[in-house]
């Protein structure tokens, strides 16, 4: 079918914000696939309904993920999007690129696909949007030659992602890029070959600001923090005051643990009461900084709502020193134990966070070999339904 008019979509060319329709227009002349995409999308806008459907599983040889197969349900009308698969390409840590590499990727996708991308997908991948089954393997190999690999999809480890961290942020409490890269490499097999009950996501944030939203959407969330005292440059404090900042109102009064004092001269922090929320540091980056004894908190179990309601991740390891190779090794071992337990007890399509709720945190901790700590909970149980274990009672009776 010939290029159709798209009056509804054309409305979206207007206005100051960048327009995805303009992006489609940019390539449609040379990409019939995009012409048909425009057509089908205009149909969707008119009819208020999508026109994609499930289809057989497609992918590249030896991988169980990385490609989302998609088919039009208007194949006759729009044959060029009969197949319209996406490829998820594992982004470089913290999404750093050079113009060189971007051009190479553009060229590959110009050749093998629709010329449309998402920079980036919600998980973090570079998403190459729309190609046919035939082109999957060639695209994959072309990318591989440039040093790129596919990301995850299906019941696998999903593409890990991390915040810009030490590369450009003064608050990074550990090297998010390195950890993200190392983990991605370490777990290539888990990333490409489904053997989990469901998906598993790692996200790495350098501090509690959590700029990759890891606590909301990763099965394992690694969030930088510190243990010792907040670093204070009192001269810089004075400068903020001189510049007109109302330190009492903007910082001290807002501190959630109310552990700060300001006497008009300097700031004092009762560091044992600090909950490491970052607020004071966020507001006064020149004067305050995280302490020097830095590491991370490991949290487990975040996910979207299907099926028992969404979960935020919860504390598993209150503090870990990620500069210490032994502790990183311990973390890998812990991850192995978690995956083993999940593999054995997780139901099909049950995320780790749901499994923990189902079997109970204390049973889970025992299985993975961690001691319970009060930092793992917001409060102890309020119901009296305690599953006392016989062994332990005996100890108590001695």
């Amino acid at each position, binding site marked *: 079918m010939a290029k159709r008019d798209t009056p509804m979509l054309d409305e979206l060319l207007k206005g100051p914000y960048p327009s995805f329709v303009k992006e489609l227009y940019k390539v449609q002349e040379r990409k019939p696939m995009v012409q048909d995409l425009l057509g089908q999308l205009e149909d969707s806008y008119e009819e208020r309904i999508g026109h994609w459907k499930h289809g057989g599983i497609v992918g590249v040889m030896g991988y169980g993920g990385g490609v989302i197969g998609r088919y039009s349900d208007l194949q006759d009308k729009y044959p060029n999007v009969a197949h319209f698969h996406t490829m998820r390409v594992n982004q470089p840590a913290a999404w750093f690129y050079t113009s060189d590499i971007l051009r190479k990727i553009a060229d590959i996708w110009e050749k093998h696909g629709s010329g449309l991308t998402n920079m980036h997908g919600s998980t973090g991948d570079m998403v190459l949007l729309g190609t046919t089954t035939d082109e999957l393997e060639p695209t994959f190999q072309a990318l591989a030659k440039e040093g790129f690999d596919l990301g995850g999809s299906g019941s696998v480890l999903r593409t890990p992602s991390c915040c810009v961290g030490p590369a450009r942020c*003064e608050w990074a409490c550990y090297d998010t890029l390195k950890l993200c890269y190392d983990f991605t490499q370490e777990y290539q097999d888990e990333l490409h070959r489904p053997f989990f009950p469901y998906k598993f996501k790692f996200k790495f944030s350098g501090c509690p600001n959590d700029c990759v939203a890891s606590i909301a959407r990763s099965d394992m969330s690694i969030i930088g923090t510190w243990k010792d005292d907040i670093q204070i440059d009192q001269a810089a404090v004075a400068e903020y005051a001189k510049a007109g900042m109302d330190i009492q109102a903007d910082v001290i009064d807002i501190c959630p643990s109310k552990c700060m004092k300001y006497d008009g001269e300097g700031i004092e922090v009762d560091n044992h009461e600090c909950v490491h929320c970052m607020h004071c540091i966020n507001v006064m980056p020149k004067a305050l900084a995280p302490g020097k004894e830095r590491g991370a908190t490991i949290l487990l179990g975040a996910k979207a709502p299907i099926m028992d309601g969404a979960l935020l991740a919860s504390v598993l390891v209150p503090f870990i020193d990620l500069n210490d190779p032994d502790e990183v090794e311990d973390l890998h071992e812990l991850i192995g134990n978690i995956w083993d337990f999940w593999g054995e007890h997780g139901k099909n399509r049950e995320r780790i966070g749901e499994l923990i709720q189902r079997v109970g945190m204390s049973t889970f901790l025992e299985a993975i070999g961690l001691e319970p700590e009060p930092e793992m909970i917001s409060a102890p149980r309020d119901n009296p339904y305690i599953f006392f274990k016989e062994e332990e009672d005996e100890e108590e009776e001695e």
Partner: protein
Amino acid sequence: MAEAPADRITDVGPPHYERFLPPIIKANYGKWKYHEILKPGIMVHVGESGDKLFTVRAASPRLISVDTIRVFADIAEKYCDGHLRFTSRNNVEFLLTEEANIEPLIADITKEGFPVGGTGSGLSNIVHTQGWVHCHSSATDASGIVKSVMDELFPYFQEKRLPAKTRIALACCLNMCGAVHCSDIAILGVHQRPPRIDDKNISKMCEIPTTISSCPTGAIRTADKDGMKTVEVSEDLCMFCANCYTVCPSMQLNDPDTDGISIWVGGKVSNAISEPKFSKLAIPFIPNNPPRWPEVVDAVKNIIEVYAANARKYERIGDWIERIGWPKFFKLTGIEFTRYHIDDFKHAGWTYKRSTHLKF
């Protein structure tokens, strides 16, 4: 299975990030001292060394063509020795060492249609999903709404400030790809009708037991229709989550007349000041109205404006609402409180008001 060619490359993982870091980052890696937002969209990060790295952040529709990628590459080469990155909210960031290059870069990128902004206490890009562009499961489009909302709220991306960072996200179905469940404002596609069952094909296309067990409320049971093995759905128990459709294509939920959008407010992710929290229901349903979803745009704008007028400095939407109380939120925004706002899912009891701390 066909045999793989001998030189086939697999499992290499992503390229090492160091390949792409500009020299100034390599030199100051982990040794940044502080940063400043010079103006919306422009930051400087200062190293302990005294080195200065300038960042220019520009909006992106996320769905970009290779042409645009090449435009970004051109600009990065012209002003940044080819260095750029993307952010976790899909903006593009140009990394400069020459302060003098900032304004020319802004001029160029703006001219290309990618305005600069998105930092600090304002709006950044809307994290979103595929919608009708690519997903089979969507109850609404993604990119079109995002564009419409951001056009209207554009001043907050640029110069206009809000009490605190305000994160809008959109997901086109209940799978909620992204962090919409923890966003200041979430725009969420919803269905309102149970699945239509393709009785003829279901036993071929789907595993019936898996389909049945996919339902969070146990609404699906086996059925026989004219001798065909199929399933039926109890309308009373279905809350239109589409989990059945995810595992079984013969349980279609999409419907032009009853699909639409719900609005959620008050979630957050960061641990700054308060703990992370979920977004809560503000508006249960707005019909799809392409191409510009004016009712959705108005609803979001209204919430933002009421928030801007009432919240205290550094107060995220959720913290503001917790301080004033939900009854007041509904009053101030004029949003109607309905039975749908009252939770009736599994842990519903937690959301009832279990004290007399009321305002009159």
